[in-house]
């Protein structure tokens, strides 16, 4: 019963949030000066008045804004995200085409940051004042302080000219149409730098957080008990302490998923990674309203789902939460 009510309230809250996001985005997007027909006229190098009026009517831009919002909401409820003004293609299709790239980038960055960050944090918590811990702290501070796009650009400079072992733009080699294993390896090769630059900030945060949390847990009574029982250091550290210390890191991970998506926009733009972030960014420049709204709607749903999943993860890691 409790679990069902939990799921239901969260779902309703989520829906209300999505509605608010759609309305807010709609208003914001339309507040930007200029409209999509102007952009299309620009891409065409000029345009006649008749054609412009025709496009306005076709896109429904001649109707008052509240009517446009109503029409849009009506369509969204039916699962129809509409057509991109710029590409004349269904927005759902454009998003579907870009989702794998963004997921690949974001998940590999987040997981990488989580695993490596926690490991570094645990390592530095073993001897909090040792040289390794100091080194990790310095690196973490640098990683935390550097903006994502700057990190990306520095990586590009390093790997484009000094050490050309990784490609610096795109998701596939420009001329490649390779499928299968060769294609996958090609994508992985391209993934390294963007994932690294996106991961670095979070990696730094997670390592700091894991370190602090580990130190906190290592000082508690049950650890002393475990040690007194004569358990091996390894077991104490990884089985007893880590499991408790990792909770705050998971909280951060869930909460920050939205941030990571936002960071992905920068990284995708810097590395020309063909994901949702770049699509959203370029669509803003083109005033391609349906595409912008579609991407934002999709992202907000992803963030809400991720938060739900985080809640569920808590219950797996810390069984006490279930009964609370």
């Amino acid at each position, binding site marked *: 019963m409790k679990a069902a009510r939990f799921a239901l309230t969260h779902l309703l809250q989520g829906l209300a949030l999505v509605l608010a996001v759609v309305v807010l985005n709609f208003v914001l997007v339309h507040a930007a000066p200029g409209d999509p027909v102007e952009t299309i006229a620009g*891409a065409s190098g*000029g345009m006649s008045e008749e054609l412009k009026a025709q496009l306005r009517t076709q896109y429904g831009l001649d109707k008052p804004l509240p009517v446009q919002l109503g029409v849009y909401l009506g369509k969204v409820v039916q699962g129809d995200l509409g057509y991109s003004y710029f*590409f*004349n293609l269904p927005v759902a299709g454009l998003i579907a085409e870009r989702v794998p790239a963004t997921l690949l980038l974001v998940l590999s960055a987040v997981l990488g940051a989580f695993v490596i960050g926690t490991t570094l944090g645990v390592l530095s918590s073993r001897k909090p004042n040792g040289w390794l811990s100091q080194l990790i702290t310095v690196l973490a501070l640098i990683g935390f302080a550097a903006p994502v796009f700057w990190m990306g650009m520095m990586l590009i400079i390093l790997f484009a000219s000094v050490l050309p072992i990784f490609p610096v733009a*795109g998701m596939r080699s420009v001329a490649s*149409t390779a499928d299968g294993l060769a294609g996958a390896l090609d994508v992985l090769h391209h993934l390294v730098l963007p994932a690294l630059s996106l991961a670095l900030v979070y990696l730094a945060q997670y390592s700091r957080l894991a370190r602090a949390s580990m130190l906190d847990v290592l000082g508690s009574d049950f650890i002393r008990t475990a040690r007194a029982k004569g358990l091996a250091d390894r077991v104490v550290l990884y089985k007893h302490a880590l499991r408790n210390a990792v909770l705050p890191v998971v909280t951060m991970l869930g909460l920050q998923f939205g941030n990571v998506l936002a960071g992905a926009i920068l990284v995708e*733009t810097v590395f020309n990674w063909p994901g949702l972030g770049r*699509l959203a960014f370029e669509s803003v420049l083109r*005033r391609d309203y349906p595409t912008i709204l579609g991407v934002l709607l999709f992202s907000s749903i992803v963030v809400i789902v991720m938060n739900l999943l985080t809640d569920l993860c808590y219950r797996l890691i810390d069984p006490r939460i279930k009964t609370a």
Partner: protein
Amino acid sequence: MLNSPTSRRRALASLIVSACALTLALPAAAQEPKRGGTLVVGTTQTPRHLNGAVQSGIATAMPGTQLFASPLRFDDQWNAQPYLAETWKLADDGKSLTLNLRKGAVFHDGKPITSEDVAFSIMAIKANHPFSTMMGPVEKVETPDAHTAIIRMSAPHPAIVLAMSPALCPILPKHIYGDGQDLKNHPRNSANVVGSGPFKLVEFSPGQRVVMERFDKFFLPGKPYLDKVVMSITPDAASLMLGLERGDVHMLPFVSVPTDLRRLKDNPQVTLTPRGYEGIGPMNWLAFNLERKPLSDIKVRKAIAMAIDTKFVTKALMAGFATPAAGPIVASSPFATNDLVRYPVDLKKAAQMLDAAGYKADSGGERFKLTIDYLPGVDDQQKLVAEYTRAQLKKIGIAVEVRASADFPAWAKRMATHEFDMSMDFVFNWGDPVIGVHRTYLSTNIKPIVWTNTQSYSNPKVDELLNTAGSLLDVEKRKVHYAEFQKIVTDELPIVFVNVVPYHTVAGKKVGNVPVSIWGPMSPYDEVYLK
């Protein structure tokens, strides 16, 4: 004369130069184009789709001219060449153009190309293409037999021949695009595109890339030389430059940033050419809003023109890659004239003119205030010149505020609503003046749309000259009309012409036959090869 040392030296120099040219030309001529290979073209322009019959602009034209063939094509001297049409004739009264189509030419799906397809395409372009003046007078296309198409027009329209170019007149298969769906939104504009050009579509990922492969049954035997053409779309010009330097990208058209050009010029791995942009005729200029005071006063406009040193702009701001523009038609066009009203820099005279016109400076040395806008995204051409203009006008007592726009739509809205005093602008001639020049000066084209006559310039004499020139068959007579038009416009100055945009095509050394016809990168790459 040859006895004077300078002329002897000059003669010797020219001899050496011609000798060098000979030795340079010989191995190039001896090199046979090679079959095979993949050409990677980098571009910052995102095509909406690939159907150039309903979408103008660079972005669609680059892949579009590979996929679709047109009745005619043009060489680097503005001469029409046979393409889908083997021969053609513009009637003496200028009201019909007869195209005799090549026999045996087929579309990518193997179906033959007939006059029906030509008729369908031309009427589709007339109905849908953003450049409404291009096919404006066309009434119908007659098809007496499968290989003859006669374009009938209501008035003499010499621009129709140039309008047969690959970038402007793609021939669509009627059996695919004539299914009754709205052509502007036709699903086959982006997927399963079928044309008759040298390459056929393999993949179109919107905003990412266009992959095309050799069409084996292309109607010109032995062509194209390349197996594949990939257009890699990257909004970030810097990463395209990097790609070119790394050798991932072979050709980069439409490069105009002086710092990039300077860097590429010193790179032994690449070649630079400014050729191939004569057709598009890209101009950079300063436009006035004549509805606003005091810009409605011709003396103020002349004083401003006198304060702007176009040579400084092209030499210092654009590192010598650009050339100054003195009139509304680019110098590379056959219709350009030298007989223009020119405004050599003279700050003193400019100040005196403003004084005489009654715009006295106040105690702070300021006469009046103006704003200047600029098109965002091409800073080297637009923002820098706007800043320079501000500095120059300050010297003659005009306080200028530079207004930035966040992005293209924001700027375009200011232009369309005529909410500006002065703005830098970036406008293409598009080959025939009828397409790209008339629109800026005709009083009938003062419209709430970007790249119309947003200056609100109106002169009945100019209207008459342009309308007559547009329908004159005799090239020489047309030239006379356009010459008079150019003189009037440079005298009345709705616009201060600053420079020709220094577009260059940059290509790796292994690229042979870099496209340098008047439409350059917006023409078929059937003769391009990789060494």
